[in-house]
Structures are given as structure tokens and as C-alpha cells.
């Protein structure tokens, strides 16, 4: 596979990179991704990403958990082997709530997390592209894919130099 050329703007501060994102985008340059050692609030919006909606998967998995739990308790206690406990109801709804609650939480948490791992391609086997090993330490890196960004190398470097980037590197991966 042919190497792809990326232009990397390295920043020292989260506010600088956040401002640079809008500057660069205003010039019509498409940003591949911005990498940071911690979450920067408002960065996803500045990059024009839709709001993260992991809650949808949590809800769907959660409701599955609730249904499975009630199915289990109702079926076993009310139908498969009804037990007469002092003449009480065969399906005592309140006593089934704890199990339904626990299974809801269990499935919602694990379901959502695995959806997240899937969406981000996170797995022990993953071979990530690491643009700069200092990203997980203290640097903020804006990566621009030269082919897809719709600007020339010179324009991009100029645009990055106008921001507060401390370094501008070109890397082929």
C-alpha cells in the first residue's frame, strides 16, 4: 500500500489547538483528526462531528436486559414450575424488580461499552496509527491527510504556521 502523507500540527496547549481547528477549517482545509492526551470539551463540535449518542445503545441493551429478566422470572416461577409460597401470587411482581434492575444495568453497561469498542476499533489486537508518541503525554496533534484535505502542502503548512502550533511535521505512514 502506498504511503499516505500527513501534515501534523503539534500544539502545547488545549486552547491553542481548539482555536486552530476553527482557523484551519475556515480556510477550507479538511482535518483528518485531532489527537489529545485528555478530552477537550467543545473539540468535537469545532470539528463538526455529530454529538456522540452512545445512550441509544445503552437504552436498547438495557431494555433487552429488562425483558430477559422478566421473561426469566415470570416463565420459571409462573409457568415452568409454579411454586406455591404460602398462597401468594405465582408471579410476585415486586420481588422480580431487583433482578430486572440488575440485568438491565449489566446489559446496558456491557452492551454500550462493546458498541463503543467496535465503533472505535478498540481491541487487544488493534494496530493503531500513532502519529506522535507524545500525544498520550502532553502534546496536541492536528493531523491533516494531504490527499483528502483539498489543499496543497504549502497552503496547509502556511495555515498551521499562522496558528500557535509549536511544530509542523510531515509524516508518511
Amino acid at each position, binding site marked *: 500500500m502506498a504511503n499516505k502523507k500527513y501534515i501534523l500540527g503539534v500544539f502545547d496547549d*488545549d486552547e491553542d489547538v481548539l482555536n486552530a481547528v476553527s482557523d484551519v477549517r475556515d480556510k477550507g482545509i479538511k482535518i483528518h*483528526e485531532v*489527537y*489529545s*492526551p*485528555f*478530552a*477537550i470539551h467543545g*473539540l*468535537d463540535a469545532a*470539528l463538526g*462531528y455529530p*454529538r*456522540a*449518542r*452512545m*445512550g441509544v445503545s*445503552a437504552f436498547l441493551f438495557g431494555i433487552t436486559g429488562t425483558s430477559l429478566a422478566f421473561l426469566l*422470572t415470570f416463565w*420459571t*416461577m409462573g409457568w*415452568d*414450575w409454579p411454586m406455591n*409460597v404460602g398462597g401468594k401470587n405465582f408471579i*410476585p411482581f415486586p*420481588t*422480580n424488580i*431487583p*433482578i430486572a*434492575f*440488575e*440485568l438491565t*444495568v*449489566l446489559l*446496558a*453497561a*456491557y452492551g*454500550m*461499552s462493546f458498541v*463503543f*469498542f467496535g*465503533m*472505535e*476499533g*478498540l*481491541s*487487544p*489486537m*488493534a*494496530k*493503531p*496509527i*500513532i*502519529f506522535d*508518541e*507524545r*500525544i*498520550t*503525554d*502532553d502534546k496536541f496533534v492536528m493531523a491533516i491527510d494531504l490527499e483528502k484535505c483539498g489543499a496543497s502542502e504549502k497552503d496547509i503548512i502556511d495555515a498551521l504556521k499562522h496558528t500557535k502550533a509549536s511544530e509542523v511535521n510531515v509524516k508518511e505512514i
Partner: protein
Amino acid sequence: MQVVSPIREHLVTGGKTLHDITEDISRHVEGNPTREWKMMFGISLAVLAYGGYWAYQTWFHGLGNWGLNKTVGWAWDITNFVWWVGIGHAGTLISAILLLFRQKWRTSINRAAEAMTIFAVLCAGTFIFFHMGRPWLAYWALPIPNTFGSLWINFNSPLVWDVFAISTYLSVSFLFWYIGMIPDLATIRDRATGLRKNIYGAMAMGWTGGARAWARYEDVSLILAGLSTPLVLSVHTIVSMDFATSVIPGWHTTIFPPYFVAGAIFSGFAMVQNLMLIVRVVYKLEDYITIEHISLMNKIITVTGSIVGVAYITEFFIAAYSGVQYESYAFINRATGPLWWSYMAMMTCNVLSPQIFWFKKMRESIVVSFVIAVVVNIGMWFERFVIIVTSLHRDYLPSSWTYFTPRMGDIGDYLFTFGFFFVCFLLFAKFLPVINMAEVKGVLKSSSEKRTKK
């Protein structure tokens, strides 16, 4: 940007930069174990081995080496179980509830607290297996038709709810802890070489820190916190129902769920306080776990301790007010009967001792904080002992009234879990980052000494 009031104490002192944080925390993962660590690990292993002998005795020769008798059929095993589960509440409380309340000070203690939670819940689980008597049949507690036919487990039983609650809590806490650790594992991966790089690389699961990933990550954390908050409350509620749904005077009270939850938070914070004070000194993390953190923890200890105190008094009052002679007697016997000393220990350790933190000087003293935290843990153990043993040892039939004395099996099994807990915690402190670097970096700007002085 966020504005922080200038009167707020700094969460990170010493003028740290982002790189300093990485260095200060990763150093302990990368370096060789220190002498203190080796010493503590050696002691923990010795305790584990000694306890392991008794655990073996209990597991393979039965519960006869416990001090149980015909009247007191449930004593140290369940006391220890509830004690460990209670301790296991602080981690998720700190990371989930304080996350929802946007309490930034949680960032430097949440990782260790969550790790502690997981190990404490595992210890609690050990006691479930212990007091099943025949641990190889533990799978009978799962919802599968039993071996003799198609009879199912009784879903009306709080003990079955416990199985679901504790296992869910353990799994979800583990997930929360692990997801919170992914960015930090990536930090260590990027600093490491050779085999270490591969191991930490696999654990970091290819985290790169992209903006899209961070946005989803934050969303996942928030929702996990939202799910864990009712979960953590439900777990101890269900544990309390093991007692509250019975008909034993002294157990059959509706106040149990909130009372147990407050107690759990109380003892959990005390344990976190103990562990963090040790970690702080041994790992020289005074700039991250500051006096302000210690003081805030002490405030929570005082509040929850007082809630527990109110619960004790309420329980007593209601027993008298109910007019039920058995109920009243259970409580009079608790305070003045042969086990009065355990009731006194509980009252002094849990209700009186934390009141010392009304004084700022005491709240900010490391020695006092440590001592009180130990006292609180002892007190909370006695609380469970009081509830369980004093309610049982004088039953409805005066001829069978008795006393409870622990035997070596009780003590040995308890030591076994202590050894296990500290071995796990020390391994965690050595091989994984004890402070959440990514989150501390995130709050550095708004609350470090260096930035706010500008």
C-alpha cells in the same frame, strides 16, 4: 472557559505541567519495586498464606472450625461479607456519583478507589463461597434448573437477588475501571519498549486519543456513571434485605436499606482514606493527593458517620415506640446485654470519633485522618457484628440463649481475605497507574496552583 473561584483550594499543587503528571505517575509503573513495596508485599503474601491454610480447612473440612452454635448460626462469615461489600462501595461512589456532581477532586483518587472496590467485592464474594459450606455446589445459586429435576431457584429470595446484584456490581465496576484506564495504558504503551510495549499495547486496545474517540469516551463514561449510581445504591439495599425481609427482631426493620447504604459509603471512604494516605507517602504523590483531598474525604466521613448515628438512634426509638416486646428487647439486649462492649465499640467508633473532623485542624492532619479512618473501619465491622450476632444470640427460647466466641477458622478466613486484598492492591499499585493521568491533566488548567496564579 470555566472559571474557578480564587478561594478554592488547588487540586494539583507544585506547579505541575502536563508532562510532569505523566512522569510522576508512570515512574512507579516503569521503575523497579521500591523497598517499601517489597516489604508490604511480603507481609501481605505471608498473611495470605496463613489465611489460605485456614481457608483450605474451611473449604475442604467444613464449617466446623467456626465458632457457630445452634443459636448463632450466622456470625463472622456474613459480618465480613457485609463489611467487604460496604468497603467496596466507595470506589464507584467516588467515580460515578462525584462524576455526576462534577466534583473535580475525584480525579486523583478515583482510580485507586475503583481498584479497591473490585478487590473488596472479590473478598466479599469469597465469603459467599465460604458460607455455602459446599463451595463446589456454588452454581446452584445460578438460575439453572437444579440437578434433581426442573425446580428453579426461588427468585423471591433476597439471597438470589444478592447473587445478581454482587455479580453485576463486580462486572460493571470492573468495566468502569478498565475503560477509565485505557487512555493511561496508552500513555504507558507510548513510553515503553519491547515486551512491555506489547503488553500495555494490548491492554490499551489501540487507543490513539482522537477527538471522535474522546467524545464517545466521555459519553460512555457519563452513561456508565449514570448506570452505576443506582447500581451502587441497589447493591447494599439488596444486601440489607438479606436481613430486613426476615422476621428476626432487630433485623426486620424498614430503615435498613438507607442505613446500610450510608454505612457502606462511610466505611468505604475510610478505607479509601487509609489506602490513599499510604500511597501518597510511599509514592510521594503529595502534589496530587493534597490536604484538600484529605479534608474533603473527612467531611464525607463525618456526614455519613452522622447519618449512620441518626439511623442507630432511630432504630432504637422505633423499637421502643413499636410496643413489640421482642423488638424492644432485641435493642435493650444489644446495648446492655452480654455483648454491650461491641455495641459501645460501634457507637464510639462510628458516631463519636468522626465528629472530631468538625475542627479544621483535625481534618487537615494526616495522622488524625489515618487513625480515625482505621477506627471507622473497626467500628463498621462491629456495626455488622452487632446487628447480626446480638439479634441472634438471645432467641425466643431462653434455654437456648448463648454467647458467640470466634474460633481460629473465623479469624483465619478473615485474614485470608485481608491478604488477598492487599496482595491485589499492591500488584495494582505496581503495574497500573494509580492516578488517572488523563483526568488529572484535564482539570490541571482550571485548578492547578501554577495556572490560577497567572
